[in-house]
């Protein structure tokens, strides 16, 4: 009898709401395997969507958190079948699960197979949920017909006649202008606006959503609706789309282009055109003509122009700007085609709901996704948005408990009096902190924890309901101080209990500073949206609100300055003026002289017309030019438009040249080698170097290690005490130093945002946020107390991280570290190159790729074809310089880090201070569980090895090479060098990149002695000689280019690297290997790993190794 199935199937809520973790805590490995088998059989047979999803997430949790702990007591190495991995990449999750289960049955349970099963169950669960949401979006009444329409002759929409009436004086068509507020969310009740939650737990899905107008404090005059859409008929059979805020315009003449979302910055407008039914989704791929379709809707020879504009609001504001812009665009298109009863003014409730449904559809089409409250700006004022139970007749009935679309209840002035609304506006300061954020992983974590009913999180979720009631009550009575207390409590307690990563050091520093300065007049903090750091609210006593607004801008700016090297910021902080919008989305018909587009539009549309000779201008072009000419002389709306037009025509330049100068300086300062650079460029161009050339020869035989190839230290308790003693003696004698590789930008950690990963305050440990550097020092501090001799600690740095690391350590007094602490500054640097099309194609077409969900994959394919075009037009293997200088440079791989110690005098200095120094232990900044373990040091010393690499048993996520026998010879092989992808899957051990180094043996390899370290020329020669024997890998890295207001583009750029693992194949060095426990060797590469890392006990293990100051 299964003990877990009742948690899914019981009709008793108390049983169903039990925590999975609590029940699993008492089960043995055998019990868990039996439960897993029962759950797997159940989910295959069940026809209930949410029962299936819960079973899948239970299975994920068992394999990710519960089984590994029980299996850790005996080391089992088992290969993960490559065919299962391939199925995972192809999103054939069911087949992947079958392959992994078969392997588990034949080879027995193992940590490796459990990791693969955990991943497969997790992805299948979320795929199932996403599929259901999409099905629901399609099946919403009012959306269905658009998927049936496949031919222009079937198009049932017609343009409203008012939009076809030209003005007799100016000859212009009228413009339909839709203006929409954005929304702020007073409490999201624990992210309860996630669709999955609303559809399974409608009773718990509640938000207080307020429509607001905005102005940038100190910039704009008065708050106004931040987003607007303009629609008009044009005399060309094309779709002309313009995004004024993104400075992008395109004339689309084929249906395929409409569905090409990532080709340019017009994806949102295209999604609106499709979701509004103008170009219904059903016509995609039909091969029909856009001209024919427009002829049906607008008339022969005519087309449509759609323009979007965002008034100075940055991306990532957590005010749902893009969703409300999408809603505004959809609304305008719907009104124009008779799908709303009124052409102007507000919308009826049923129309708002269909705009919401269409916005959901548009977000799905564009491959993005928001919460169900995000289109809240379409509604007026303050509203309570709640999940709704699916009833008979709803498309969701019988499938999910809740409906896809929530219900909106407007709180009128009887419920929230005018005075209370004013008080809220008089106390609340809305800001954008400037941080770039990726909320996606957080939303998955929330869903998972909800479905698992994790104990603390479930309690916290219940707590949010009470807080919402308090906020509602405070609003009704106008008690803003109570409201501030409630939003603060919400942030400090339930929100962070559910997701600790919702907060960060930046936010907490701001709160602390504001509290210190304003004391009792600071009434509360409030997190907007998915996580803090971007959109936030600070509530002040009204008499100090203005001061608060002014000071917050200063406090944020100054705090950002101190933290911007450690945390990803997308833009300068902004403070807003805001007012509650009591109308919701609103439309006007602009006729005659008033028929003007947003002012910025003309800087985009007029210059191309001015470049044409007059005789090539069509009549409608002349009409447009005349209209503009008259309006910019007389209409206040276009004051300043002429200057803006000139700016757009005349060349600028000082910014670019400044960037070039700083790039040249950095290259010079950090040891750029132009000769090598040109050689690499030439090799790339002719194909001597490239992703395909990274690989070992195809005939290389890659085999797994044999018994006896490595020392097993996975069970620390069973290691001989003698080894521990040897290590301890060496430590006491001061024979060891730590070298932490801290030069990197953590590309995966912040998706190429360019922060110093070592300084990133990644987790709250010991009661507050700690950076990687502080954590490593805390571990060494504990060891120092144990052995009595302070451990020298070296952090390697680069052009990019040196100054910031130096400043951080100085600001924090070396985090109180008593031992020697040195920075080893990088002396090698590379300049990134535009990748070759060959390498891009290899990376995207030849290498195994995680396929995305259908619509997201379409968007990705479209983006990739745009990037291929970019590489071609900007010159393959050309220098990448079109970004901030620091984003154009790259570190040249960690092989150089140890030679840098020789080159920059750090080793010489260490040896001078500690002549007895014999060993270095080098490790990655993100190998947080690593310590200078006496027993492992003892093993390294006892073996007499020159290098001892630490490896861990492989899990599915451990990609990038491993320990192998290559043509019979034991060595570490980098993932890039694997001749075939599947070779890696036969390897049991993964390289943790922690390496113990015998100093003198290493120097001997370089043909150097300790005395030679003062001869820089000799050192350089020696390094160059060994470097020449190390393979050069070409890699593609993603870098962000920031522009506009918080906009970011990600480009794949090419760089080269030499890697330390290749020292394992150096013939002159005695290299050994130790298998260590996972908690010691695992690396934190991705922020999405953090939650699992916290839950599986790794964080607690780390805490036990640290001594904080």
């Amino acid at each position, binding site marked *: 009898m299964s003990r877990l199935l009742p948690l899914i199937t019981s009709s008793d809520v108390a049983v169903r709401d039990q925590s999975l973790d609590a029940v699993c805590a008492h089960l043995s490995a055998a019990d868990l395997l039996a439960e897993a088998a029962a759950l797997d059989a159940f989910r295959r047979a069940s026809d209930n969507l949410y029962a299936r999803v819960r079973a899948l997430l239970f299975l994920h949790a068992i394999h990710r958190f519960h089984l590994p702990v029980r299996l850790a007591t005996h080391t089992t190495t088992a290969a993960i079948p490559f065919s299962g991995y391939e199925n995972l990449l192809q999103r054939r999750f069911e087949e992947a699960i079958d392959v992994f289960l078969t392997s588990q049955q034949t080879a027995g349970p193992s940590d490796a197979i459990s990791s693969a099963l955990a991943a497969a169950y997790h992805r299948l669960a979320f795929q199932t949920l996403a599929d259901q949401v999409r099905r629901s979006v399609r099946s919403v*009444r*009012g959306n269905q*017909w658009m998927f*049936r*329409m496949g031919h222009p002759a079937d*198009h*049932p929409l017609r343009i409203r006649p008012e939009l076809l009436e030209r003005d007799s004086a100016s000859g212009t068509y009228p413009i339909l202008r839709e203006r929409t507020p954005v929304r702020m969310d007073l409490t999201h009740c624990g992210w309860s606006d996630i669709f999955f939650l609303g559809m399974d737990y409608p009773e718990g899905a509640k938000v207080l959503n307020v429509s607001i107008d905005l102005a940038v404090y100190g910039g704009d005059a008065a708050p106004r609706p931040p987003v607007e859409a303009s629609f008009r008929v044009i005399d060309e059979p094309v779709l002309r789309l313009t995004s004024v805020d993104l400075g992008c315009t395109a004339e689309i003449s084929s249906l395929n282009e409409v569905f090409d979302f990532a080709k340019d910055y017009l994806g949102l407008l295209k999604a609106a055109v499709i979701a509004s*039914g103008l170009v219904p989704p059903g016509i995609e791929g039909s091969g029909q003509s856009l001209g024919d379709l427009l002829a049906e809707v607008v008339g022969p020879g005519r087309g449509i122009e759609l323009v979007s504009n965002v008034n100075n609001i940055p991306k990532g504001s957590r005010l749902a700007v893009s969703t409300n812009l999408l809603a505004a665009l959809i609304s305008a298109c*719907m009104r124009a085609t008779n799908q709303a009863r009124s052409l102007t003014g507000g919308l009826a409730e049923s129309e708002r709901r*269909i705009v919401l449904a269409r916005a959901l559809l548009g977000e799905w089409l564009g491959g993005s996704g928001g919460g169900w409250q995000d289109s809240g700006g379409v509604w007026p004022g303050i509203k309570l948005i709640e999940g709704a139970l699916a009833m008979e007749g709803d498309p969701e009935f019988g499938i999910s408990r809740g409906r896809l679309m929530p219900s909106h209840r407007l709180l009128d002035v009887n419920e929230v009096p005018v005075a209370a609304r004013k008080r809220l506006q008089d106390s609340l300061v809305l800001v954008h902190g400037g941080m770039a954020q990726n909320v996606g992983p957080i939303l998955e974590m929330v869903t998972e924890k909800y479905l698992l009913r994790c104990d603390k999180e479930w309690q916290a979720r219940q707590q949010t309901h009470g807080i919402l009631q308090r906020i509602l009550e405070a609003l009704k009575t106008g008690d803003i101080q109570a409201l501030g207390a409630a939003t603060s409590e919400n942030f400090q307690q339930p929100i962070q209990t559910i997701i600790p990563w919702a907060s960060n050091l930046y936010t907490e520093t701001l709160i602390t500073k504001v509290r210190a300065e304003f004391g009792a007049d600071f009434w509360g903090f409030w997190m907007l949206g998915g996580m803090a750091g971007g959109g936030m609210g600070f509530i002040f006593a009204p008499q100090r609100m203005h001061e608060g607004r002014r000071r917050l801008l200063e406090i944020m700016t100054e705090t950002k300055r101190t933290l911007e090297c450690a945390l990803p910021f997308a833009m300068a902080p902004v403070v807003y003026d805001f007012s509650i919008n009591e109308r919701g989305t609103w439309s006007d018909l602009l006729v005659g002289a008033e028929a003007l587009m947003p002012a910025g539009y003309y800087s985009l549309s007029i210059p191309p017309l001015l470049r044409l000779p007059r005789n090539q201008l069509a009549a409608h072009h002349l009409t447009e030019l005349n209209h503009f000419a008259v309006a910019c002389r007389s209409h206040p709306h276009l004051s300043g438009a002429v200057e803006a037009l000139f700016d757009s025509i005349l060349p600028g330049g000082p910014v670019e040249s400044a960037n070039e100068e700083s790039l040249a300086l950095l290259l010079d300062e950090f040891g750029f080698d132009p000769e090598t650079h040109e050689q690499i460029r030439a090799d790339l161009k002719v194909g001597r170097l490239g992703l395909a050339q990274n690989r070992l020869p195809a005939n290389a035989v890659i085999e797994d290690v044999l018994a006896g190839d490595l020392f097993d230290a996975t069970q620390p308790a069973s290691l001989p005490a003698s080894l521990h003693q040897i290590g301890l003696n060496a430590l006491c004698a001061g024979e060891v130093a730590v070298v932490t590789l801290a030069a990197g930008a953590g590309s995966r950690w912040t998706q190429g945002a360019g922060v110093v990963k070592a300084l990133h305050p990644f987790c709250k440990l010991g009661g507050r946020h700690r950076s990687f550097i502080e954590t490593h020092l805390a571990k060494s501090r504990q060891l120092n107390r144990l052995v009595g001799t302070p451990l020298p600690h070296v952090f390697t740095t680069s052009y990019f991280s040196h100054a910031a690391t130096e400043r951080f350590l100085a600001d924090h007094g070396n985090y109180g570290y008593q031992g020697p602490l040195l920075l080893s500054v990088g002396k090698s640097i590379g300049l990134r190159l535009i990748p070759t099309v060959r390498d891009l194609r290899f990376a995207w077409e030849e290498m195994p790729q995680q396929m995305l969900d259908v619509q997201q994959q379409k968007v990705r394919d479209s983006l990739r074809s745009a990037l291929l075009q970019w590489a071609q037009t900007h010159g393959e293997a050309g220098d990448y310089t079109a970004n901030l200088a620091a984003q154009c440079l790259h570190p040249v791989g960690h092989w150089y880090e140890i030679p840098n110690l020789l080159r920059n005098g750090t080793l010489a200095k260490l040896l001078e201070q500690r002549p007895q120094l014999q060993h270095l232990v080098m490790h990655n900044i993100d190998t947080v569980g690593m310590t200078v373990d006496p027993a492992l040091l003892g093993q390294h010393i006892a073996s007499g090895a020159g290098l001892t690499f630490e490896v861990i048993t492989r899990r599915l996520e451990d990609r990038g090479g491993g320990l192998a026998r290559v043509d019979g010879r034991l060595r570490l092989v980098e993932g890039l060098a694997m001749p075939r992808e599947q070779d890696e899957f036969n390897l049991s051990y993964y390289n943790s990149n922690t390496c113990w180094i015998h100093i003198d043996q290493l120097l001997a390899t370089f043909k150097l002695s300790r005395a030679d370290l003062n001869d820089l020329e000799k050192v350089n020669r020696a390094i160059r000689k060994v470097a020449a024997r190390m393979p050069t890998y070409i890699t593609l890295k993603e870098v962000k280019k920031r522009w506009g207001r918080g906009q970011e583009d990600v480009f794949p750029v090419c760089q080269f690297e030499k890697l330390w693992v290749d020292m394992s194949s150096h013939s002159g060095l005695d290299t050994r290997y130790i298998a260590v426990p996972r908690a010691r060797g695992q690396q934190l590469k991705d922020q999405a790993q953090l939650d699992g890392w916290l839950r599986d006990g790794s964080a607690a293990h780390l805490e036990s190794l640290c001594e904080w100051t």
Partner: protein
Amino acid sequence: MKIRKAIITAAGKNQRALPLQMLVDRDGVPKSALTILAEEITGAGIEEIAVIISPGTEKSYMASAGPYAREMQFIVQPKPLGYGHAIHCAAEFTGNEGFLLMMGDHLHISQTGKSCAQQLIETARSGNCAVSAVQATHERMLPYYGCVGGHRVPGHERLYEVEAVIEKPTPTEAEQKLVVPGLRAGRYLCFFGLHVLTPAIMKILGRHLAAPPVAGNTGLSSALAELLLSERYLAHELEGSRHDIGQRYGLLNAQLALALIGKDRDEVLTQLIELLAQSKA
């Protein structure tokens, strides 16, 4: 409900000459469309017919009415103020009686022994309420027709209790308000150009016409939407086809449909096949 009277509307701007078009009926006899309509109406037991016409067309209508001129009276709609107004011009004619309403540019061809008008009148009599003839129509045609939503009357396969009426709905609105269980996806019950209405409709139309003009409030559909709030109102999916002779090739289609159910079927089919054989692709 007693139904003795019928109204044929023929005053529309593009509609005026259509009832005067000549066709060959199923018996091979050339007749005007107006005569064919009158035949159907009188065959269904109607005693009096009013034809709503535009000014100056009375003579030609009279000439085209053939043997039915006696049962007909011609009412002039002085100004083209919409379909609702045209119907209301016959308010005096219908008085306090129910009536059959037909459009002068629509011909109906029944697939049973009973004409379409007869089928509809029988339904109205047995239900004692207003009934509109409807046809399941693909959503691409929605911009052209009034449309009803509702549910099937239990035990009657082709009869619907009407719950909503919207003139020329968008598919978005139709999907939200006019979906009828049992119909194929993307199909809606659109008007067939044939109604049996109660006297209440004239009162509603009168009220609408007297009120300040509101968009979408001058047609029959808005009056029917109001009617169903106070009276039972049914829709009948007739066993027959509707032919709008005002559409492109509409007259040709109607003629072919008539011929293919008539005595000259073989002859017409033969001619069609010959035409096909001779025509080049």
